[in-house]
Structures are given as C-alpha cells and as structure tokens.
C-alpha cells in the first residue's frame, strides 16, 4: 500500500452548546498522512487550534477501535464517512485524496440534541433499553449454561444483531431519523434466544412505545440505516421487530 500526504479543506459544524446557534467553520489542514485515522486528522487540527489560542473541536470518541460506539461524525453526507461497515474512528485518510473538501456535521436528529460542536446526546438509546432491552434475571438465579441449548444458526443470528454498538448511525443516516434498526437489533437478539422468550411481547411493545416517545421518526424501509451501520446490522431485524410487534400486539393481554 502506497502512503501519501494530502492537504484538505475541512468544513466543520461549530456550536457552543445545545441552545446556541451553530455554523460551519472552514479549516485548511495540511500534511495529512494517508495512514492516519480520520480522528487522528482531527487531533492534528485540534492541536493546531489550541496552539493558535482557539477552542478545539469537541467530538465524541473513546475506544478508537470501532466498538464503543462513541464516535459519530457525518462526513460528506455519510454517517461515519464513505467506507461501508466502518466507524468514524476506523475510517482512515486513505479514503481521501489531496485537495478534497470534507464537510463534517454532527448526527442530526431532534432526539439527539447537539451538546457541543460534533458531540450529541444519545441518552434516548439508554432509555429505550431501559424500557425492555434485557432479560429479567437477577444475579445468582441462573441454571447451568449448557442446560440451555441454542441452535448454532440462531446463536449466530442473535450475535449478529447483538453486535450493535449503539452509535446512532442508523438514526443519523435515516431520512426520518428513525431508530428502528437500533431497536430491532436488541429485540431480535433476545427474540432469537430461548432466554428472551418469557418477556418477548412486553419487550417489543415497551421498547417501541419508548422509541415513539423519544420522537424518532418511523421507518419507511429505505435501507439507509443498513447501508451505514458500522456493524452491518441487517434489515431483516426490522422485519423481525415488525413481526414481534404484530404478534405481541395481537396477543398481549395487558
């Protein structure tokens, strides 16, 4: 792989806090190595801003290995940038070429208010999980793990859904700011496993009720969420969520 350096023009959304008006600022950056990650490029820019006596750009990030789900940049119109199945932190500058203009925005959704610059508040996701994204089993109640048999294909499908990192790219990518992919991933994981059966009806109904309450849009099946999901969570999970909803709604006794 050939390495190269590049000069870019960055247009970044700056917003002092939730209530302030935001606007784009333009920053030229130079000498960026193709081996850097996208966030390392931001580190370089921030270091420069600090040295110039300006405020650095605030953005969420933590593990920088694509699993914590903190990073969340909308890059040139794409949630997490141009690479499929990739978080912002794993996006590398090889994806860009010398002279490119790169526009970076925060996730845009009423349910994800901007905290500062590119940082948003995704507390709505925690509240959706609170509504039912769990198996009610107190510590110490469990039987021997191998007493529960789970067919491999079911276990694999449950894992694929459980791989969701809660980054919110699905909401950011959806033209309706719908959280259906996120909700469906958790509902699917538990609906596929024997452990999730006792609460499957209340779980689906309560999580959807909370999702609506948080103000997320509805799903129009455009598929943008699946295309942008860094963990490539499948739309089949949304279909399963719909099935769970129908089954629960038609038979739940409460």
């Amino acid at each position, binding site marked *: 792989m050939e390495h190269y350096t590049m000069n870019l023009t960055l247009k970044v959304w700056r917003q002092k806090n939730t209530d302030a008006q935001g606007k784009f600022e333009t920053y030229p950056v130079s000498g960026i190595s193709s081996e850097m990650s996208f966030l390392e490029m931001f580190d370089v820019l921030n270091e420069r801003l600090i040295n110039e006596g300006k405020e650095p750009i605030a953005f969420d990030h933590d593990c920088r290995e694509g699993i914590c789900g903190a990073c969340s940049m909308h890059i040139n119109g794409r949630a997490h940038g141009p690479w499929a199945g990739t978080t912002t932190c794993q996006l590398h500058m090889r994806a860009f070429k010398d002279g490119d203009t790169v526009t970076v925005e925060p996730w845009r959704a009423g349910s994800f208010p901007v905290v500062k610059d590119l940082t948003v508040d995704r507390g709505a996701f*925690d509240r959706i999980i609170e509504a039912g994204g*769990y198996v009610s089993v107190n510590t110490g109640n469990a039987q021997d793990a191998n007493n529960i048999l789970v067919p491999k294909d079911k276990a694999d499908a449950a894992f694929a859904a459980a791989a969701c990192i809660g980054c919110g790219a699905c909401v950011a990518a959806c033209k309706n700011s719908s959280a259906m992919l996120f909700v469906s991933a958790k509902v699917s994981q538990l609906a596929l496993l024997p*452990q999730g059966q006792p609460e499957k009806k209340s779980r689906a109904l309560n999580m959807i009720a909370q999702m609506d309450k948080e103000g997320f849009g509805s799903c129009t099946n455009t598929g943008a969420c699946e295309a942008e999901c860094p963990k490539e969570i499948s739309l089949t999970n949304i279909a399963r969520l719909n099935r769970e909803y129908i089954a629960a709604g038609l038979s739940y006794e409460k």
Partner: protein
Amino acid sequence: MLNSKIPAGSLDKKWEDYKGHCKLVNPANKRNMEVIIVGTGLAGASAAAALGELGYKVKAFCFQDSPRRAHSIAAQGGINAAKNYQNDGDSVFRLFYDTVKGGDYRAREANVHRLAEVSGNIIDQCVAQGVPFAREYGGLLSNRSFGGTQVQRTFYAAGQTGQQLLLGAYSALERQVALGNVTMYNRHEMLDIVVIDGKARGIIARNLITGKLERHFGHAVLLASGGYGNVFYLSTNAMGSNVTAAWKATRKGAFFGNPCFTQIHPTCIPVSGDHQSKLTLMSESLRNDGRIWVPKKQNDTRKPSDIPEDERDYYLERRYPAFGNLVPRDVASRAAKERCDAGYGVGSSKQAVYLDFAYNMDRYGRIEASKRQLSNPTPEEIRKLGKEVVAEKYGNLFDMYAKITGENPYEVPMRIYPAVHYTMGGLWVDYELMTTVTGLYALGEANFSDHGANRLGASALMQGLADGYFVIPYTLGNYLADDIKTKAISLDHPAFIEAEKNVQSTIDKLMSIKGTKSVDHFHKKLGKIMWDKCGMARNEQGLKEAIVEIQALRKEFWSDVRIPGDANEFNPELEKAGRVADFLELGELMCLDALNRRESCGGHFREESQTPDGEAQRDDEKFSYVAAWEYKGESQFELHKEALEFVECKPTQRSYK
C-alpha cells in the same frame, strides 16, 4: 499494618465459609443504604446491577455518554471459566493454579481461588442474560484456548466477547435504572473522595456538560474505574481511560498496589507514525491459529511470501515447544522484542513480527473439504474453504486489521508488535475488596488483586464480573451491616465543602496557567519516558532517570499547559488535563515501584535479573510480597509490604518449555 483479612481454613473452603458467616443487611435496611459506584465497565455495571437487585440505592457514575461505552466493550478474545465442558482436565484448582503461575507467583492465593470458584457462575449468569456466546452445532457452548493454559476453557463471542458481556451487564444495569434502584450519572467524572470520620462517605463529581461540581453521599464508595495503561500515552486503552478516580483515592489514603505491574500485550498493530493516538489489539485468540515468525536472516527485506519455509524462524515454537505460540503474554512480548532488537524485525519500522495464518487456513480448508467430501480439492479450493473458517472465527479482527493497515490479512501475514494493554497493579484491596480507606472498595482492573505480575488472557473479563456479580454483594453487606444506623450525611457537611473546594481550586489552577503547550504534548512526553524506561525492559539507571524526567515534566506541565475554553462548560481539554496531571504523579510511583522491585517477574522485567537464557528471574526470598504504596505528599511514598504465602501453589521457576 496491612490486613488482607483472608479467612482461615483450607483454600477451597475459605469463600464458602466467608459467605456462610458474613453479616447481612435485611431488605428493609438495604433500601436506606446508598452505594456510589464509579465506572460502569464489567466490574462497575455488574456491581451496580447486582446491588440494585438486592435493593440497595445505587448511584452509578461514568464519564462516557452512556455506561455501554466503558472500555470493557473492547475486550476481544474471551472469558475463562472452569466448566470443564471439554472434558480436557480442567477444574477449579487448575484454573486457580494456572492463574497463580501465570501471574508469576505474585498474586494472593485466596483471591485467585475464589475467582476460579465463581468463574462458572459467571458463564451461567451471562447466558441467562442472553449473551450470545459462540456455540457448537449441537447447541452447546463452544470453547477455545488462550495463552498460558493447556485446556480449552475460554468462552467467546467471535472477537467481541467483552462487548457482549458488557452489554449483558449494561442491560441488567438499565433494568435496575428502570426499576428505580440505580440512578445513572452519565458524563460525570469523579474528582475526589469524601472521607468522614475515617470512612469513605461520598464523592465530588464534575458534570462534564455543565462543568458544575456536585456532591454525592454514599454509605460506601466503589471504584470500578479500570486500569491506568494510558500513562504510556500509546496503549490499547480507550482515549478516556484514566487513573484519576484511583489516584484521588490514593491521595485520600488508599494504598496503591504493585503499580509497576504492566501488561504488554504481544499482538498489537504496530505504530505507523507520530500521529498515532492509540494502539489496536489483535486478540490473543489469534495465536490459536496464527504462527509467529521472523526471517532467519537479519534485515531481510523480501516480501513474506518470498521467504521460503526453511528461512523462517518460528521463534516461539523453537524456544517454547510445550506451549509454542500460546505462551503467556509477557513471555511472547519479550520474545518479540528480543528478535526485533537483534535486527530480525519486519516492516518499514523493523519493529514488528509476522503473525501468519496460512498454515492453519490450509489445515482448516482440508478439514472442510473432507467434511464436504470433496475429492482432490485444488490448493485454491482448500484455501478458500479455510478462509471461510478463519473469517467466522476472527472476521471482525481481520476486517479491523485491513482498515487500519490497508493490507489484507487473508493474503499476507499480519505484522504485530507488543503494546501496553492492561495494568495488573491498582488500588490495594483486602479479601473483601476494601482499600485501606474504610468503606472504599476497588473492583476489576482498578484493584491489584488477582493477576499477580502477569494476567493470563481471558481472565480480565472473568475478574471484573466475579468482583461485581459475585463478590461485592457479599463483602459489601458484611461492611454495611454495621452501618445501618448511619443516616444519609448532609451534603453541607464540612468534609463535602472542603473536598469540593479543593477540587475547585485544582480546576481553577489548571485553567489559570494559560501556558503555551497542549495537554497532549505533555501526555506524549510522559508516555515516551514511561515506554523507554519503564516499559518492556527496565533497569536501575533508566528508572532513576525517568523519575527525574517525570518530576521535571510535571513542573513544566503545571506552569505551561494551555487549556482553552472555560471550566463551566463541556470542555474535553480540561478533562484531559486533569487526567494527565494524575498520570504525571502515578508515572513517578510506577518507576519508584519498578526500581524497588529488583527482580524480574511476569510483565516486570528488570534487565539485571534474568536467567542465562534470557528468561525472567524471580527473587522469591526478597520480593514475594505485594508492594502497597502510601501517598505522603508530592513525590513521597511509603512502602508497605503484604507478604504472600503460597500453600497450594508452590513457586517454581515458571517454565513454558
């Protein structure tokens, strides 16, 4: 004098006896007992869930925007448990034995045995929560091997085991939040412990969004704030991982145990340039199927595919035939460093070795071909089938490698090099996980207890969850039972006011420096000192130099750091500054501890103390103790020793040959 409060009796009965005799808090009283938990990784989230389930009023704090982002999420390979599902000779004793031996006889036997005892319960609990562990076709749980063991006892979920376990604990935690038993404080950073009448009674936390300082009362305070590997700047830790909570506790009287015990993980993606902000681990599980080698010729610049088999040096298999590529991490790391230092390294930096899957990819391919009854498969067909098997086991890791390096690891061997990964040291705790400050506990990586001088792979997840789900619910009750008459202490108590004032003045001081250099500038410099002089190999002269350099750097930091913005707003630079300030004190203590320990053990390698063939040479006579350091003021630490006794697991020269 340190009292580790290890229960009497034979090793395998200690925990049973403890549980049978510890004091309990009745349900009505639990509702009035408040518990503060700092950190929501595996240890913190599981403790918060378990204590919430018991009925305690829990307040949990994390600096991230959600408890689900704690860095436990990034653990890849798996979690150990003595289930013996594979019928390959595993048992509680063997897990205990492997862990004590793997830790190079610097762990406390009683703690490790308890860990091994509850390991099975963890798997049961996680499966019940819906954690999707890997399974065999019959629907049973699958296992794999990790370094330093000869059995298959590691449970896993592809290369995302930590994620799945943390999400399980996070779900359990959120369930308690919904039930009103746990109150969650996201984006809050603990900046001091409040001690009243010798007992930990609360914390001062900064709301990271508003910048406001908050006082929180708790009958007890639990720190589950993780490890301090970021003192090296470059590590596999998350960017936000820090020592601040543990360090504030140290300054309030909690002793710091074995600070120099750092784990350097052998298989990480090598540094690519000065811009590097963190290092990425390639799971140890890869060593199940990847063979590590370097060219037999120095400075060989040929492509790996052009180097014939007999010109490759599979140095781990050569040096350690019994364990081969699955030697413990400390051994594998030093061996890689030895080869690279001797001029056999590969890649442009020459600071890397190959981790090669070709051999096992072909082996798997042949097995698959035979399963599918293909007669005379071509090498291409075999390779293709083998790739599919490898992709299923490690797909996410291979993808990650490809994204970071731009190379396809299915086609060319990975290049790897050791990197700072885990810290065995941490707050000194007794058998009950209580620090030397009464009512202040430390769980998970934040404490020093179970891994001695080197942690075996897949044991960190086990320890975090053991502490949170199965240990603290008992030991905390034993403490709080005597405290049921204590009413919630007013937040206007002078100790709260004083603590908040101190925190405020530190923040004011940081903000008022208005120097010329960024926080990262200092962090990078500190990291370089630590890596060069307190890293994979340490010696007396280097450590002494490091201490002087760190002191100078600290002085420079406090006179020249520049923090833009204000203190009363969301200000990530201010957060970083506070953390780096603490690392600048901890780094010195690590060097001091490394200097004091004139032996090599586990991850701590003193060049002065090695066997003729370059293996770590312990000195049990002089150093079979836990070094617990008491903070006495800037650059002043007093050493306390907890002698280690080995009853079941007699120390011998650790051999993986």
